[in-house]
């Protein structure tokens, strides 16, 4: 770690270098996906690092030119579920974990609506949450999300659809209570913030 700053003894192969470049570029995405799965920034970075190493170790089985983002996401997801099976303790992404995330990513610039959305997301069943994140935030097509989750495309579609409805219902009804704020406020602030964000994007 804090060892000598000698360069690697042998230069890596060109393929390894290309693989590594792509992998490094994907780290931010792996971190984001991991955080949405675990709901905890520290656990998420551990998970993302494990996945990164698994991908690196398995690089011989990866075909350059295919979708490396989907491939690494699948590795990360498998890693997450196999770890979860080992420890029941972390089996639920609960309100508590969501609260920890809120604290950890707390940023005065971040609008209130974002916190409400995180809490609402935490109330979704896991398979709905991951489908929604992959398609709705990760930019994956349904087919890619299905490959990542190793399920049928139709299954992903129905999970995303159920997740959307549940999320909206939660935000409107307030399936959670926080700071005594009314649920209607959550939806209102999301609408306002989304307006602002989309006008920025379109500009």
């Amino acid at each position: 770690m804090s060892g000598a700053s000698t360069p690697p003894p042998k230069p890596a192969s060109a393929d390894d270098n290309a693989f590594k470049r792509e992998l490094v570029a994907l780290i931010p995405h792996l971190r984001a996906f991991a955080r949405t799965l675990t709901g905890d920034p520290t656990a998420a970075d551990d998970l993302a690092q494990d996945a990164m190493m698994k991908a690196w170790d398995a690089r011989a089985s990866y075909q350059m030119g295919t979708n490396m983002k989907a491939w690494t996401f699948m590795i990360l997801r498998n890693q997450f579920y196999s770890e979860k099976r080992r420890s029941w303790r972390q089996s639920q992404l609960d309100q508590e974990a969501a609260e920890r995330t809120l604290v950890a990513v707390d940023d005065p610039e971040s609008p209130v609506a974002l916190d409400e959305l995180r809490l609402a997301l935490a109330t979704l069943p896991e398979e709905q949450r991951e489908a929604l994140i992959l398609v709705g935030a990760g930019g994956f097509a349904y087919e890619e999300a299905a490959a990542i989750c190793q399920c049928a495309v139709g299954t992903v579609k129905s999970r995303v659809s159920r997740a959307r409805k549940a999320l909206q219902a939660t935000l409107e009804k307030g399936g959670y209570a926080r700071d005594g704020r009314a649920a209607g406020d959550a939806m209102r602030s999301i609408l306002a913030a989304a307006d602002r964000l989309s006008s920025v994007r379109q500009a």
Partner: protein
Amino acid sequence: MAFATSQQSFVRVAAVFSMTDNSDPPGKGPPKGGASLEEARLRQQAIGVKLRHMFDEIVNEQVPDEFLDILRRADERSSDGGGK
């Protein structure tokens, strides 16, 4: 690499979230002021935008040095560890 640009992704995300289907009105409680279908569509879009924003916020965070350190060490290991 075949990543969608963020503009493309955004359009795709917006499309996903505007596909509201009306068979099952959101929220079984009293629809305050009778949320119209158009309104429901807008709400889904708004949630989609926020979701994307939430994810991007993490993507845009600075990656902790640890990640690159780990990868560098693995690289060194594999170059002296007699792999291929």
